[in-house]
């Protein structure tokens, strides 16, 4: 997707010239090829810093919360859906943002790459069509991108932005071969005891750094429940304390998560965080035909109700 870079720069430049935006939020090159640096550009001279590639995997919608300027922002399918959620949850106004849509071909799972190259330090990555070259000190190898995509990208149903003002390229065709919730179904099949041991193992390494929460655009509570004094939630790395954090956070995202994969991407310990919320995404889809962030016209799944709801508990 490196080919999108030039187009993004042109669009950003034009938006500044036409005085349509005050700032532009995108990515710039950093010192770690797997984590390009999110950047805010307010000086039109600096649009040349902007880049795009298959490692731009954080959900930039996180940076929109509470901003008052007119903002240009690059957005893939999942990011655009998070922006939709932000709009319907009154975190930003649609007219304040200019969405530069990225038809997304998927984000590279750096863990898959590191496993393959056995932990060597990656100095540079060069993309070419459907493959990418990993350049290390005295070693380089070309890989097929398809084999190294993030799991959420492999089951992505909306790679194209659902709202945008302009696209950087023609829409891509969503992949259809892979069942979306197969991984959740595998866990659903387990017995309660097996499920518990799965979760115990999954969160064992958690260091309570909260990177998953902080990178998530939908985790914007001014004070997170885990930071409240009353009620008090344990802050140690004891299993129950850690589990409380992950489960309640997942529940807060029910019907809102767009499966962008940022939480899992940033986790320093490689915890499969996505799967907790994905179970709730699956429930929302199967029980209410709901997919998060698809329409500006509807309220959120769990904050709207119908008088004629056929369930009698409401």
């Amino acid at each position: 997707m490196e080919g999108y870079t030039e187009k993004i720069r042109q669009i950003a430049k034009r938006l500044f010239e036409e005085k349509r935006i005050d700032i532009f939020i995108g990515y710039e090159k950093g010192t770690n090829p797997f984590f390009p640096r999110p950047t805010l550009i307010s000086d039109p001279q600096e649009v040349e810093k902007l880049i795009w590639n298959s490692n731009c995997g954080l959900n930039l919608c996180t940076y929109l919360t509470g901003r008052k300027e007119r903002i240009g922002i690059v957005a893939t399918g999942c990011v655009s859906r998070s922006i939709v959620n932000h709009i319907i949850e009154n975190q930003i106004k649609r007219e304040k943002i200019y969405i530069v849509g990225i038809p997304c071909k998927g984000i590279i799972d750096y863990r898959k790459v590191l496993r393959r190259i056995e932990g060597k330090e990656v100095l540079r990555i060069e993309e070419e069509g459907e493959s990418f070259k990993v350049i290390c000190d005295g070693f380089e190898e070309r890989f097929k991108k398809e084999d190294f995509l993030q799991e959420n990208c492999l089951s992505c149903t909306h790679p194209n932005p659902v709202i945008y003002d302009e696209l950087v390229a023609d829409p891509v065709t969503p992949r259809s071969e892979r069942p979306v919730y197969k991984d959740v179904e595998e866990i659903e099949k387990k017995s309660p005891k097996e499920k518990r041991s799965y979760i115990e193992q999954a969160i064992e390494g958690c260091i309570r750094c909260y990177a998953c929460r902080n990178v998530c655009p939908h985790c914007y509570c001014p004070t997170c429940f885990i930071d409240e004094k009353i009620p008090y939630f344990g802050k140690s790395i004891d299993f129950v304390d850690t589990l409380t954090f992950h489960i309640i956070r997942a529940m807060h995202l029910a019907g809102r998560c767009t499966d962008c994969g940022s939480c899992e991407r940033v986790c320093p310990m490689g915890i499969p965080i996505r799967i907790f919320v994905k179970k709730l995404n699956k429930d929302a889809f199967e029980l209410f035909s709901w997919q998060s962030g698809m329409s500006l016209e509807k309220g959120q799944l769990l904050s709207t109700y119908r008088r004629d709801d056929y369930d009698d508990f409401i």
Partner: protein
Amino acid sequence: MRFVLKDDFLKKLREISKNYKVFVPVKKDYFHLFQELKDDILPDFSFFNTKLSPKSILFPQSERMFEYSLDKDDPDAYILKEAKKDFSPQIIVGIRPCDAHAFQIVKQNFDTPEYKDPWWTKRYSLTTFIGLACNSPRSSCFCLKVGGGPFSEKGLDAIMYDLGEGFLIKDITDKGRDFLDKIGGDEAKKEHLEKAEKLKKEAEEKIKVDLKIEDLLKRPVLSVFESDIWNSVSFPCITCGICTFLCPTCWCFDIQDEVYGKRGDRIRNWDSCMFPIFTLHASGYNPRGEKFRRVRQRFMHKLKYYPERYKKGIQCSGCGRCIMYCPTNMDIRRIINMLAEEKRNESISSLSCKD
């Protein structure tokens, strides 16, 4: 100095682990962590460095300090009693020189003439630090620029050099000699020493980064505090705790009481200046409520407050974890150089503090 083949070394380590807690680097998925050597644990010394620093071996992330009873019928109700802790003698084998140096930095805080952290200092005195010289520093490494080096002996009791088929081990302190006696091996030969010297030269040449630390240290603290860069450099930061929790030199903690029915524990947990509640006052006021203030604090502490207080360089051992694992590429080297190169009228701003 001794030379020992790797297989023999591992056999001896397993013997030592019967009487000591021995911590070794262990491969976990695509990264390494220090773990206690047990029968089913296979150490992997061909690692770059562990993802989590070994600081938790002396300073656990969550530690029960005291326990107490809230039962009125208990004669000892409301009396704090020290919780049981494990103070077995322990050996960290394969610690990188940057992380050993980091313990010396942390020591400045936990072991001062006025205050001594009882548990940290006790564990420190019971720990033997066996280093593993770093043959292949990474692009994010800058130990050499902060008073250490890939072959530095700072804070080590003995240092091992990986010569391929075996380790050359040099004892530095009595504790190190004691370890070496347990390991055995043959007297080192001249060719071993020459090979180690060559590896050292090659490793040091790999650390090329130009860091203007001296220029930054010369700047007045208030001027750096008021720098114009903080707002813009803090933009990408998501203020998570990765950098501070992975950092071998970050020592901040918070103490919480946790009550379960009629008993309670007083626990200390690692804390991070990146978190808003780190400085939240009981009144509700937060002096570091905004992100840029928290980002500024992390760098000010490491780059200005610590050096001014202890006069021992910056509070950083150059391990590069915060660079490698930051999801938004907040690169401390970039920030050091931006601050060092900043042009400001120092004489005026150093007199006033607007914040």
